[in-house]
Each structure stands twice: as structure tokens, then as C-alpha cells.
């Protein structure tokens, strides 16, 4: 900066700290554009716009209803996955937790149990799976990848045992209630979407404003430091996997109602979409970074892209290629950014 420039800037700034403060708190726009979430959101909006113009099927009420519901299922679990990833772990068992949770509610209710027993039982089973994951990871010190990979297989197998691998589509006396919960809508919005919005709000609040959230991000950033400052990292880890499993359990219950029946291939491969949503939404697989809003936006982008492939008449065989590439691209994006920051 020239001498003149310096002199000109002096009268407006009162102290060095204020100048620094001003430069730190840049305009809203420049802060927004530095966020990965912002660009992902823009991409999703752009895709929506393009699809509305290119096809007459996208912007129909029916299609939007479907998209928003599908997206809600992925987004709900992506909230739990973001917590796990931000804490420095990974949970591969969410897809299987979905099927075991929905199978639990389906089996109990088809046996004549009421709604209010079936759903808590399903959520309880999900919490139990999460607790087993968490305890093996935190107390036995096993790698999250291995533990949750094992659980992926175990939980789906249990769902098969439980149902004898049959489809269940009769849910006893509260049949209609269960279907209305996951398949119905309130004030024009699909119920899963409402649940997702509420959960996203709560999760975002917890991440930012509670000690649990703060400790979770601290643990993901530097687990050793978290331990040394007296944070109970083991209990914290268990709670994180329980949270993730609970989001999968909620999704399981809602999906039964939407589909109107459960088979044991429900939620197969879902972990991939969920991890993709979290990572695209800015969660860092190395731990310590992630937001609830990002998880939702990531899920939105994936679902819109998936829907667009169908509407544009591209074979569904391509879906995996797209979702997979998106994970890699999101991680690459993050790599480039951190390299640029260092260099």
C-alpha cells in the first residue's frame, strides 16, 4: 500500500484491532461465496431450473412431491452421518439400520401390536445398533470402518431372520396410521420433509450451541487434545453413533409408511448416498468439519441429479457412477482448497 493510501485509511479506523475486525468480517456475499455449501446449493438450484426448462415432468406437483420425500430420507440420515464424520468416524451401517428398524415396526404391527409400541421398539432397536457400534469403537478401540462394515452385514441379516425374508404389507389395527405417517402430508408438505426440516433445525442448533456439539467437533479436530482437556471422548463417541443410528431408525419408520410395505432390500447401498450427501455438504472425512445445513443441501443435490437422470431418460444404471463421482469430486474440491490455503 502507498503512503498516501495509509494516511487516508487512518481517520476512518480507530485502532488496529478494528481494522483487523473489519477485514475479518467481510461482506455477507463474500463470506457466502467462500462456503462450499453455498456453491452446492447454487448447483442444486441451477439443476432444478434447467430441469424445469428441459422437461415438462420435473416441475409437476407429483414429481416434486416424490423428489422432496426421497431427498428427505437421505437428508435425515445425512444429519446423523455428518455428526459421525465431523467426530472423525464413519458409519457404514446406516442402510442396514434402516431396514432393521422398518422390519421391526412391520413385524410387530403385523402381529397386531399398536402403533405406539411398534415405533418406539423400532427406534430402540436402532439405538441399540448404534450403541453396539459406539461401544466397540470407543471402548474396544476398533476402527469405525471395520465395526460398522460388520454391522452393515449383521443388521441386514437380522432383518431377514426377523421377517423370514418375506415382504410385509399388512400392519394390523394401526395400518392406516403408519401409512399416513410416512406417506401422508401435512399442509401440502410430505411428512418426511417436515420431520427432516425439524431434525435439521435441531441438529444445527446442537452443533453450534451445545457443549455436546462443541466437544464433537473438538474430538474430530484433535482427539488427543479433547481427551487431555477432560472431555469424556468415549461416552461422546458412543453418543455420536447412537445419534446416527437414531436418524436411520427414524428414516426406517417413515419409509415403511411411504412404501406401504417392507422387503429386506430396503436401504441397500443407501450408506453411499448418505455419505456422499454429507461430504458434498462440506463434512470433512478427516474430521472436525461439517454442518447440518450442508448435509441437507448435499442430499438435495444428489436427489435432484438422480431425478434428472430418470427424467432425461438416462439409464438408471448410471446413477451409481454419478453418486460415486460426486463423492470423489467433493473430496478433491476440499483437497485443492486446503492445499491452496497452506501454499
Amino acid at each position, binding site marked *: 500500500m502507498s503512503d498516501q493510501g495509509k494516511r487516508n485509511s487512518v481517520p476512518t479506523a480507530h485502532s488496529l*484491532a478494528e481494522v*483487523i475486525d473489519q477485514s*475479518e468480517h467481510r461482506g455477507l456475499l463474500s463470506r457466502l461465496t467462500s462456503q462450499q455449501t453455498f456453491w452446492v446449493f447454487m448447483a442444486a438450484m441451477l439443476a432444478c431450473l434447467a430441469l424445469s426448462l428441459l422437461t415438462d415432468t420435473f416441475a409437476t406437483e407429483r414429481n416434486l412431491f416424490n423428489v422432496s420425500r426421497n431427498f428427505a430420507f437421505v437428508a435425515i440420515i445425512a444429519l446423523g452421518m455428518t455428526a459421525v464424520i465431523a467426530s472423525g468416524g464413519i458409519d457404514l451401517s446406516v442402510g442396514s439400520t434402516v431396514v432393521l428398524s422398518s422390519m421391526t415396526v412391520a413385524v410387530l404391527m403385523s402381529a397386531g401390536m399398536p402403533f405406539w409400541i411398534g415405533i418406539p421398539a423400532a427406534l430402540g432397536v436402532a439405538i441399540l445398533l448404534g450403541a453396539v457400534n459406539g461401544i466397540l469403537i470407543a471402548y474396544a478401540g476398533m476402527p469405525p470402518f471395520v465395526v460398522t462394515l460388520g454391522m452393515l452385514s449383521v443388521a441386514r441379516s437380522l432383518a431377514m431372520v426377523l421377517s423370514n425374508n418375506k415382504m410385509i404389507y399388512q400392519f394390523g389395527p394401526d395400518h392406516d396410521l403408519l401409512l399416513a405417517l410416512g406417506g401422508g402430508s401435512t399442509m401440502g408438505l410430505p411428512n418426511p420433509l417436515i420431520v427432516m426440516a425439524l431434525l435439521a433445525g435441531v441438529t444445527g442448533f446442537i452443533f*453450534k*450451541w*451445545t*457443549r455436546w456439539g*462443541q*466437544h464433537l*467437533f*473438538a474430538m*474430530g*479436530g*484433535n482427539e*488427543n*487434545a*479433547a481427551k*487431555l*482437556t*477432560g*472431555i469424556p471422548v468415549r461416552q461422546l463417541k458412543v453418543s455420536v453413533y447412537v445419534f446416527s443410528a437414531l436418524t436411520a431408525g427414524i428414516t426406517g419408520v417413515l419409509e415403511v409408511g411411504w412404501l406401504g410395505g417392507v422387503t429386506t432390500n430396503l436401504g441397500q447401498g443407501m450408506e453411499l448416498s448418505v455419505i456422499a450427501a454429507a461430504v458434498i455438504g462440506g463434512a470433512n472425512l478427516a474430521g*472436525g*468439519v461439517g454442518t447440518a445445513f450442508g448435509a441437507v443441501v448435499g442430499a438435495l443435490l444428489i436427489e435432484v441429479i438422480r431425478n434428472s437422470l430418470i427424467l432425461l431418460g438416462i439409464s438408471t444404471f448410471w446413477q451409481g457412477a454419478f453418486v460415486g463421482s460426486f463423492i470423489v469430486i467433493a473430496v478433491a474440491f476440499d483437497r485443492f482448497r486446503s492445499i491452496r490455503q497452506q501454499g
Partner: protein
Amino acid sequence: MSALRLEGVSKHFGAIHALSDVSLSIEPGEVIGLMGDNGAGKSTLVKVIAGNFAPSAGEIFISDTRVEFHKPLDAQRAGIEVVYQDLAICDNLSAAANVFLGRELTRRIGPIQILDYARMRIRAGELFARLKSETRPRDLVKRMSGGQRQAVAIARALLSDAKIVLMDEPTAAISVRQVAEVLNLIRYLSDHGIAVVLVSHRMPDVFQVADRIAVLRRGRLVASKRAADSSPEEVTGLITGAIEFA
């Protein structure tokens, strides 16, 4: 009154005598440079004082009261803070969040406790100002210099009103200018009546700030004398064993 007194502290790991009969006393505000070769028992001694290891024999007194630590938290409650070599800092959090890590300030809104960011920022800002550090509470630690990170770690010790600060190789991996910053921070602690145990390999740093030098060799305390009465040559001799005892 001594801030910290060790009497006949030993630590055995099976047949290995990591520490044998170490007796040492540190006054409030005193800076003691703890030196010794690799494996001489420095880290073990620090870990015994910090509550990571229970001593096999011997007693520890803080302000002339006998204490027993079963876990690091016990030592922390008794007024001992450790600034670890890797600083035990979370890069992804702000300076203020790091200072308050594990003891966040909260306020109540109805039935829920939420983090009181405003109060934590103000308190952290006051601590950094006291340390004459240009660290800003809102900044992410990731973007800070080595000296600023040290200030964060030391602010944490100040926050808890520590009586004794243990520093494990604080100047090992930072630039010359930052070393000066860290040595200033140590002097600040000492000026405020906080005893500092400085574990270091770097002779010049130790002689710049330490009031007293303690040398460990193969688990035994072979010297504990005023820095002014010693010299780097003597200390080198004590560390290597060329000088038996001083």
C-alpha cells in the same frame, strides 16, 4: 511455602526404574529448567506430576498439602496445568473455544444450557491481552503462528488459575522469533507467582528464563542448582555423566 514438592518419588515399570528417589521443591513464581538426555526420566516425571502415572513410591505436596492423583483431572483440580509439546489444541476451533475446551461457559435459556460465546470471547480476549499476545479470540487456531498457539495453550492455564505450569518442549518446533515470544510468556507466568517447570533440550532457552536448573540422569536427580551458579558446560557434563553430581 513451596508450590510443589516431591519427596523420594520413584516410578518403576516392571524392572525398569524410570525414576529413582527424586526429591525436588519449587517455589511459587520459580522457573525450573528440567534437563536430561532422552530416556533420563523427564517425561515420566512430568507425567507423574500431571497425574498420568501414579508414583511407585514417594509423596507429592502442593502448597505443603499432600496430594494423590489418580487421573490428570485430579492434578488439574489441584492447580497443575500442562502445556504439551503438540499443544493439545484443536485446529478447527477458534482460539476462544480452545481456551475454554472442556469447561465451556454456558447460559440457560429455559430448560436448555447453551454456550455463552460472547462471554467466552471476552474472557479469552482479556487473557490474550494480559499475555500481550496479538491472538484474537475469534480466529481459527489453524491460521495462527506457533507463538500465538502457545499463547492459546498458556491462556488455558491462566483460565484455571493454575499454580504450576508444566511445559514439555515448548520451543522445540518453532522459529527464533516465536521462541522469544514463548520465553516472554514464561516470564509473565513467573511474574504472576506461577511456578513453571520447563522441560527442554535447548540449553540457551533454559538459561534465558530458568531460575534453577534440575538435571536428571538415568532416573536420578543429579543436580538442582541456581542457573546463575551453573553454566551450559556444567549442565552438559551433568547430562552426559562427565560430571557425576553437582
